[in-house]
C-alpha cells in the first residue's frame, strides 16, 4: 500500500530539477562576486604594503601610497555617522513610539521609503545647493559628510525602526500600565533592548557610503590633495574618488594600482560589516528575554 506511483515519480523528478535550477542560479549570482574578489586579490594584492597604506601619492598619483584618501574616507564616514545617528534615531523613535497611526504618519513613512530610492547624484546636487552654498560650508568634509548623511538617513530610519519594533509590545504595555510615560518606557526598556540592533544597522548603512563617489565629488572630495585634513572645513581626498580618478583621468597609471586601491576600499567596507555583525551577535547573546 505504500508503493511509489507514477505521479510520485514524476513529482520527484520535477522536484529535483527545480532544486538544481535554483541552485545554479544562486551560484551564478555568487560567481561575479567571487571573480571580482579573486581578481582584486591577484592583481591588487602585490600592491599592498605598509608604505602603500601610510604614504602619500607621488608623481601625479602614478606612484606612492594612498594615505590621504584612506584618512579622508574615515573622516567622511565618521562625520556622516555622527550626523545621521541622532537624527535617524530621533525620527525613528518618533515614528515608532509616539506617532499615532494616521494619514500623516503614513505619508511620512511613504516619503521615507521613497527617499531611499533617490539616485545619489541627485543627493549630490542637493548637497551642493544646501550645504556648500546655502549654509556656506564650502566644499568641505562637513558638506560632503552631511550629504552622505542625508542620503543614508531614510535607510537608517527604517533599520532603526525595525530594531525598535523587535522589542515585544508587551513590555511597553507593562510599563504604561505601571504609569510610565512614553519617554520613561523608551529610556528604561525599549532603547536598552534595541540599542545593539540600532547601532549595528546604522554602522552597516553608513559604512556603505564609504564607497559612494557622486555625493562627495562636488561637495568636499578633492582629486589630488596630498595633505591630511585638519578639520571638517577642509577638503579631502577619498578612496572612492581616488579610484575613479586614477582609473579614468590619469595617464600612465601602473596596472596594479587601481586594483590595490579597490582592494583596500572593499576591505574597509567588509571589515566594518564584519565588525557590526560581530557586535550584533555579541549583544544578542546578552538579551534577557
Amino acid at each position, binding site marked *: 500500500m505504500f508503493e511509489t506511483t507514477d505521479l510520485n515519480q514524476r513529482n520527484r523528478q520535477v522536484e529535483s530539477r527545480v532544486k538544481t535550477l535554483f541552485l545554479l542560479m544562486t551560484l551564478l549570482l555568487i560567481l561575479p562576486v567571487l571573480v571580482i574578489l579573486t581578481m582584486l586579490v591577484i592583481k591588487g594584492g602585490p600592491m599592498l604594503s605598509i608604505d602603500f597604506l601610510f604614504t602619500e601619492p607621488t608623481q601625479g598619483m602614478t606612484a606612492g601610497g594612498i594615505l590621504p584618501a584612506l584618512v579622508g574616507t574615515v573622516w567622511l564616514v565618521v562625520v556622516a555617522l555622527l550626523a545621521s545617528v541622532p537624527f535617524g534615531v530621533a525620527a525613528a523613535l518618533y515614528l515608532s513610539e509616539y506617532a499615532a497611526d494616521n494619514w500623516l504618519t503614513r505619508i511620512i513613512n511613504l516619503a521615507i521609503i521613497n527617499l531611499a530610492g533617490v539616485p545619489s547624484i541627485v543627493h549630490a546636487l542637493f548637497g551642493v545647493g544646501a550645504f556648500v552654498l546655502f549654509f556656506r560650508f564650502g566644499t568641505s568634509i562637513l558638506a560632503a559628510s552631511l550629504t552622505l548623511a542625508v542620503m543614508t538617513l531614510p535607510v537608517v530610519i527604517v533599520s532603526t525602526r525595525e530594531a525598535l519594533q523587535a522589542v515585544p509590545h*508587551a513590555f511597553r*504595555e*507593562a510599563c*504604561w*500600565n*505601571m*504609569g510610565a510615560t512614553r519617554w520613561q518606557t523608551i529610556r528604561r*526598556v525599549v532603547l536598552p533592548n534595541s540599542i545593539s540592533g540600532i547601532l549595528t544597522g546604522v554602522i552597516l548603512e553608513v559604512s556603505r557610503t564609504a564607497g559612494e563617489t557622486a555625493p562627495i565629488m562636488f561637495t568636499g572630495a578633492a582629486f589630488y590633495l596630498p595633505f591630511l585634513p585638519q578639520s571638517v572645513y577642509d577638503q579631502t581626498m577619498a578612496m572612492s574618488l581616488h579610484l575613479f580618478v586614477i582609473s579614468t583621468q590619469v595617464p600612465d597609471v601602473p596596472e596594479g594600482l587601481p586594483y590595490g586601491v579597490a582592494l583596500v576600499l572593499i576591505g574597509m567596507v567588509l571589515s566594518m560589516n564584519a565588525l557590526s555583525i560581530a557586535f550584533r551577535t555579541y549583544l544578542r547573546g546578552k538579551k534577557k*528575554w
Partner: protein
Amino acid sequence: MAESASNVTRTDAIETDAIKTDAIKTDKLSLWYGNFQALFDVDLAIKQGIITSMIGPSGCGKSTFLRSINRINERLGYVRTRGKIEVLGHDIYGPEVEKVQVRKQVGMVFQRPNPLPLSIRDNVLFAYRLHDPQHRRKGKAALDEIVEKALRQVLLWDTVKDRLQRPAGLLSLEEQQKLCIARLIPVQPRVLLMDEPCSALDPAGTEAVEELIWELRGDYTILIVTHNMAQARRASEECIFMLMGKVVEHTDTAQMFVTPQHEETANYIEGRYG
C-alpha cells in the same frame, strides 16, 4: 480547601462592607472602539477590600472594562468613552486627574506574564522608581527591604532570594506571574485588576497564584477576570456576569452559582455558550 476558606472569610467581608465606600463605581459607562460599541451603559459598584470576579464569554468586554479603569484604553487614540468612573470616590475623568496617578493606584496584571527584560530585583523596583523621585537617595538596604517585602507578599521570596540579579525571563510562568504582582506592591496600589491571570498557567501554577490572590484579599480591592468558573467560584466573594458589553448580573458569588437570577447567567454557568 479554598472552598471552605471562602466561606469563612465571606462573613467578615460582609460585616466590614457596610462602612466602606465602593472601590470602583461606574455610572452608565459606554465605550466605543471607533464605531464599534464595546460597553453599553455599564453600572457597577465594586466593593472595597474584597475579591470580585468577572465572567462572561470571549469578546463581551471584560478586558475593555478593566482597561477603562486605569485609563489605558485611551492610548489607542480611537477610543471614545461616555459615562462616569469613580475609583475610591474620585472621578478619574475629572479635570484635575493625572493619569499616571490613576495607573499608580490601580495596578494591572495581564493574561500572559510580562516581566520586563530586567533582573528580578529591577522588576520589583521598576514602578517604585517611576513613582518615587527620592529613590536615588534611598540606600541599597532600603531598596532591598522593599524588594524582600514585595516578594514575600507574593510567596516568591524563598525561591528567588539567591538569584535576584538574574533575568526575570528565566523564571517559570507561575513565578513570572507572581513577580508581575509583586512589582505592583511597592507603590501601594489600592486596586488590583487581573485579566485572566491564570489562563497561561498549568493547573499547579493556577492553584499557586489563586492562593496568592486570596492572600492579598483585604489589603487590596481585587477585580479578577476569569474564564474558569471553578476559579470564580473558589476565589471570589462577588461575581459579575457580562454579556455583549452589558452587565447581566452582579451578586454574591455563592448565590450566582447556586441560584442565578437571569437565564443567560444560568446558561453560561452551565457551559451552554462561550
